[in-house]
C-alpha cells in the first residue's frame, strides 16, 4: 500500500474519530452511554440531552465536514486557476458580498426581509440575504472574468469588490443600533451551528453536487498548472474554465457563508496542508485529499471551540487562524528559502 493511500486512510479515520468526538463532547457534559443511547433511539437520563445530541451536535458536526471540504476545495481550485498561493474563496469578495447582504438584513431592515409577498425573518432572513449578497458578487466577478484576460487583474478586481462591500458594511454598522452591531459581529465570527437538521438536506445536496463536479475537473486543473498557453494548446478553453471555477467556488462559498458565516483560513491553509502531506500537485489525488483534510480541520476547530470549561464556547474564527496562520507563515518561509 502506497504512502499516499495510507495517509488518505489516516485522514478518513481522523474524520470519523473527530466526528464522534464532536457528537460526544460539547459545552454540556453528557455521559457517553447516554450519547450512544440517544443515537440508538433510546431514552436519555435527561430529555433535553436528546435535542442537544440529535439537533445540535449532530448537524453541527455534519455541517463542519461539508463546510470544511467545500471551503478547502474552493481554495485549492482558486490557487490553481490563478497560480496564486494566497488565493482563497474570500479573496474575490464573495464573503464580503454575503456580509453586505447580512448587514442589510440585520442592520438596515431590523432582521426581516420582504421580497414581494414573501416575508422572511430571523435566521432565514439572514440566510437568504447572505446567499443573495454572495451570488451578486459571483455574477459581477464572472462578468469581469469574461472581459479581463489577466488572472492578476481579475484578482485585483475581486479585492476591490471586497473593499466596496466592506465600505458598505462599515456604513451600515456606523448607523446601526448596539443590538444590530452585536448580531452582525456574532454572525461574522462564524459557527457551524447554523445548519439545522431541517435545512441539512438542501445544504448537503448543494455542497456534495458542487464538490462532485469539482472532482471531475481534476484533469483540466492539472493542465492549468502547465500555464495558460500550454493549456490552450492542449485544447482547454482557459477563459471558460476560469469562469466555471469561479462560479463553482462562488457557489460553495456562498452556501457555506450563508449558513455558517464567513469562516477564515480554512480555504487558504488547508490546500497547502494537503500538499505538504501528500507531496503532489496531481489534482486527481489532491482534490479528494483536500476535501478530507478540510473536514478534519473544520471538525478539529469546532471541537476546540467547546474546550473552555463551565459550559462556555469561543468563536470559530478565533480558532481557525490558530491552524491557518502557522501554515501560511511556513509557506512564506519555505518560498524564501
Amino acid at each position, binding site marked *: 500500500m502506497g504512502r499516499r493511500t495510507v495517509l488518505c486512510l489516516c485522514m478518513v479515520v481522523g474524520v470519523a474519530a473527530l466526528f464522534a468526538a464532536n457528537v460526544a463532547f*460539547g*459545552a*454540556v457534559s453528557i455521559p457517553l452511554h447516554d450519547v450512544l443511547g440517544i443515537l440508538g433511539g433510546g431514552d436519555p437520563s*435527561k430529555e*433535553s*440531552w436528546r*435535542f*442537544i445530541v440529535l*439537533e*445540535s*451536535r449532530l448537524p453541527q458536526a455534519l455541517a463542519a465536514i461539508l463546510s470544511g471540504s467545500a471551503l478547502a476545495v474552493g481554495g485549492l481550485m482558486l490557487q490553481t486557476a490563478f497560480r496564486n498561493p494566497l488565493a482563497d474563496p474570500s479573496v474575490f469578495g464573495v464573503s464580503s458580498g454575503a456580509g453586505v447582504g447580512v448587514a442589510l438584513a440585520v442592520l438596515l431592515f*431590523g*432582521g*426581516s426581509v420582504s421580497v414581494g409577498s414573501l416575508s422572511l*425573518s*430571523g*435566521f*432565514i432572513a439572514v440566510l437568504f440575504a447572505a446567499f443573495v449578497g454572495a451570488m451578486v458578487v459571483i455574477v459581477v466577478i464572472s462578468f469581469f472574468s469574461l472581459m479581463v484576460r489577466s488572472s492578476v487583474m481579475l484578482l485585483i478586481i475581486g479585492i476591490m469588490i471586497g473593499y466596496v462591500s466592506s465600505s458598505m458594511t462599515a456604513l451600515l454598522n*456606523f*448607523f446601526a*443600533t448596539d*443590538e*444590530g452591531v*452585536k*448580531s452582525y459581529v*456574532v*454572525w461574522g*465570527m462564524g*459557527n457551524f*451551528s*447554523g445548519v*439545522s437538521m*431541517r435545512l441539512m438536506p438542501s445544504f448537503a445536496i448543494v455542497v456534495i453536487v458542487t464538490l462532485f463536479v469539482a472532482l471531475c475537473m481534476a484533469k483540466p486543473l492539472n493542465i492549468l498548472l502547465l500555464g495558460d498557453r500550454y493549456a490552450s494548446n492542449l485544447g482547454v478553453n482557459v477563459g471558460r474554465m476560469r469562469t466555471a471555477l469561479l462560479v463553482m467556488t462562488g457557489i460553495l462559498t456562498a452556501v457555506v457563508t450563508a449558513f455558517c*458565516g464567513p469562516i477564515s483560513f480554512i480555504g487558504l491553509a488547508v490546500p497547502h496542508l494537503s500538499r505538504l502531506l501528500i507531496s503532489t500537485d496531481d489534482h486527481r489525488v489532491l482534490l479528494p485529499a483536500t476535501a478530507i483534510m478540510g473536514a478534519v480541520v473544520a471538525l478539529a476547530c469546532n471541537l476546540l471551540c*467547546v474546550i473552555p470549561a463551565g*459550559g*462556555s*464556547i469561543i468563536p470559530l474564527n478565533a480558532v481557525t487562524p490558530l491552524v491557518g496562520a502557522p501554515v501560511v507563515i511556513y509557506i512564506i518561509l519555505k518560498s524564501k528559502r
Partner: protein
Amino acid sequence: MSNIWTIISLSVALVATSCRDGMRSSVTADGDTLQLKYAELIEIVRHKGYSEVNVYDPWHKGKMLQRYVLVAHGHRENEALPHGTVVEVPLRKVIPMSTVHAELMADLGCREAIVGIADLQYVKMPYVVEQCKAGRIADVGSSISPNVEKIIDVSPDALLVSPFENSGGYGRIEETGIPFIECADYMEATPLGRAEWMRFYGMLFGKEKTADSLFSAVDSIYHALKSVAAKAADRRSVVMDKNTGSVWYVPGGRSTIGTMLADAAADYAFADESKAGSLALPFETVLHKAGDSDVWLFRYSGSSPVTYADLLNEYRGYGELKAFRNRMCYGCNVEKTRFYEETPFRPDYLLGDFIRILHPDVSLPGDLRYFQLVYDE
C-alpha cells in the same frame, strides 16, 4: 392585597425617613461630604463657594476618571478652586449624548436645557423629536463620532458623555474647551447605585432638591417591592434573553439584571455566576441549566409583537424550553417600550415587572410596563 399596600406604605415612610438621613452629609475640615447610599464610583464634597465631584475610574480601581469643580456662574476665577474640570452651574445649554440622560433631564424638569442630541434616530422623547424638527435642538450625529461643527455651533455649557474603557479620548471635541461630564453611571454595580447618580446630575442642573426627592422615591419604592417579593410564597424560575446568532448572552449573577432578579426573589439558574456582565453561552448550556425554568423573559427589537411561530422560526431549539411549551414567555420590545430610556434611573419600574411575572400570588397595582406575554398569533 391590602397587606401588600400596608407593607409598601410602611416601607415608603421608613425609607423616606432613612433617606433624609442618607442625604445628610458629614462635615469635616476638608469639606462637607455628601453621603451616597449606593453609588460607589462617585464622591461629592461641598466646600464654601464650590462643590467637588470625584468620578472614579470603573476599570482601574483606585484611579480617578475626572474631578469636577462645580461653581456658580461668574465664580470660575476663584483662586481657591482645586485642580479639576471647572463647570459653571446650573448648566443652561447641554448636549446629552445618550437618550438615557435626556430622559432624566426631562424627569428633573430641565428639558429646556437640551440644545443638542446624538443618535436622534433612536430617540423616542416626543419633545426632543419635535424640537429637532423645528431646528431648536441640534442633531449632532452619532454619539461615537459626533459632528464637531454642530456641537461648536450650539456652544453648549457641557456635553454628557458615556465613557468607554480604553476609548482613546474624545478626539477634536476635547480641543473646543467644552466641559465633558463623564457619565460612568452605567458602570455602577447595583441598579440603585446607578440611579443615585441623578443626585449629581441634579446639582449640575440646579435641580438638587428635585433629584433628591426623586431618588428617595425610587429608593423607597424599590425596597418596598423587594420586601414584598421576599415574602412571596409562589416563586417561578426564570431564564433571561435569547440567542444572538450562535451565542446566548446570559446576564451574570452580579450584572444589573442579575441583581434585580435576586431582588425580585427569582429562582435564576445563573444567579451564582459571579460575573458582573453577561456570559456567552451556547444554546445547549442554557437548555441544560435553565431549560426547565417556568418563565422565559427576553428583550427583542421589532416593528410588531413577537409570536411563538416567530421564535421557532428564529431558532427551533426554543421549542425545547419548558416556558415555551407552557406558553410562559414574556417579551420586551425595546422599539415600542422605553425600556432602555427609563430603567437606568427607574429600576423600580423594572423590578415591578419582574415581581408581577415571577410571583403570581403577589398582586401589585398597575400593569406590566415593559414585558408582555407572547401570543400564538
